[in-house]
């Protein structure tokens, strides 16, 4: 019998192109590993990517079970990313001044192309508050606050407060009657703070002789509003807090929160 020679089938054009592409310098420098078809490459995908490396390489089957987790934490994070993106787009057309604030919001609906960013942002904000509460409820009902997860629970509570503050500061920005009076009512609580509010207990004790240290133009409420009533100072301050200050804070806490979930044994693990 003649020797049979194995001949590799001739590669198609697409396959040759792909092989060439995945060996170019650009490709190899971006993707440091092969496709995640082997266990080694699956690990490398997680380890070599900054966005993915907060995640574990593997999770338990119960981690994707909706009846265990409700996925509310993940939904909250997804909504946060959504709100960040729509918020960023809104910032291109909104000016936080007394003269322009209200008309710019109307313009975002009437004049701006794809004018649903304001609605998406507002609905997303409502939805995020709901998902955050449901997430907290789920964590409580599954006992996922017990040791070693107590610290993460506390971080989560702070994030809840920050979420509500984000809603509070964002509410003022349309500068309509609903916004102004809601913030007036809400910020009036600050003037009753003990010692730091000019109408609170103890404020009259803080004085140098005849000069009061805490008064309507010099208390916690004044620092919050940048004025004695909700005006241009409050609008600008709330804008900065809403777009930069509070998101930075909550993003840092999110990193801590996700890290702690991973380090404490992964999502939806047995207690």
């Amino acid at each position: 019998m003649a020797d049979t020679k194995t001949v590799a089938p001739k590669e198609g054009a697409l396959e040759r192109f792909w092989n060439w592409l995945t060996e170019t310098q650009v490709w190899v420098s971006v993707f440091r590993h092969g496709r995640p078809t082997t266990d080694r490459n699956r690990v490398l995908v997680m380890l070599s990517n900054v966005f993915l490396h907060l995640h574990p390489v593997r999770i338990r089957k119960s981690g994707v079970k909706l009846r265990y987790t409700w996925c509310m934490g993940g939904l909250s994070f997804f909504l946060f990313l959504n709100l960040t993106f729509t918020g960023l787009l809104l910032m291109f057309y909104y000016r936080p001044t007394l003269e322009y604030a209200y008309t710019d919001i109307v313009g975002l609906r009437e004049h701006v192309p794809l004018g649903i960013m304001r609605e998406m942002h507002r609905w997303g904000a409502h939805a995020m508050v709901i998902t955050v509460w449901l997430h907290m409820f789920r964590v409580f009902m599954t006992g996922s606050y017990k040791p070693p997860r107590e610290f993460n629970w506390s971080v989560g509570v702070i994030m809840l407060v920050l979420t509500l503050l984000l809603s509070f500061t964002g509410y003022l920005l349309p500068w309509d009657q609903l916004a102004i009076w809601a913030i007036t009512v809400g910020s009036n609580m600050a003037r009753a703070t003990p010692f730091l509010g000019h109408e609170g207990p103890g404020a009259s004790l803080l004085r140098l002789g005849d000069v009061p240290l805490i008064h309507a133009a010099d208390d916690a409420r004044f620092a919050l509003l940048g004025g004695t009533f909700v005006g241009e100072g409050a609008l600008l301050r709330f804008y900065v807090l809403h777009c930069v200050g509070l998101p930075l804070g909550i993003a840092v806490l999110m990193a801590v929160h996700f890290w702690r979930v991973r380090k404490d044994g992964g999502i939806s693990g047995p207690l």
Partner: protein
Amino acid sequence: MADENKPETPAAPPPAAKPAAVPQATTPAARPAPPKPPAASIPDLAGKTTTAASPGGAAAAKASTAAAKPAGAVRDPDDTSPLLTRRAWIGLSWGVFSAASAAALAATGRFMFPNVLNEPPQQFKAGFPNEYGMGVDERWKEKFGIWLVRTPEDYAQHVSGFYALISVCTHLGCTPNFLSAENKFKCPCHGSGFRTTGINFEGPAPRPLERARVALADDGQILVDKSRHFQYELGQWADPESFLKT
């Protein structure tokens, strides 16, 4: 840590007498032993940054003891020991850094209190008394947030004259409206009702409207000063500054 203890055992034997046959046992036992006398600790450490076992170490220990005591004392020109130990330097740096950080934090806190406010002035002249009739006048409500009220007999002071009510509802801070047909102030937010005197009589308002200071300016005009408030429930409506007698 181990380095500190090894030269220590021959130099200062631990009070608990341990047989020399078990050197390994002595070294861990040396750690819980009572500490070295405190006066010697810093120079001891300084001595160890050279080599404690070497003769230079002992000399350095003696020299730095002398140098550490009086600040500004004359040092021996041949003294090469450090002015401050590494630990002292780092401690000093941390101290300065902490102080600077605290100062920066305080400055940031002060930054949040603006010095300049774009708000209507707290004091203003409201025209001459003969320009006003009896009852509630709304001409300054929008601009300055007060109602100027003229009465033949005041609720608190029982004379005729003017008082200024601050148009902020005492419930949660909304601006009430004056309903002239019913001669009362009514807050649109939660329905608090106030008489023209300012006394609350319906709704969730817990106390009467506040009065602002009123006086007669030099040119005979009414001067309204919102920087001082007078509250009825504190008995402050008896203050002559809260009412302008005419």
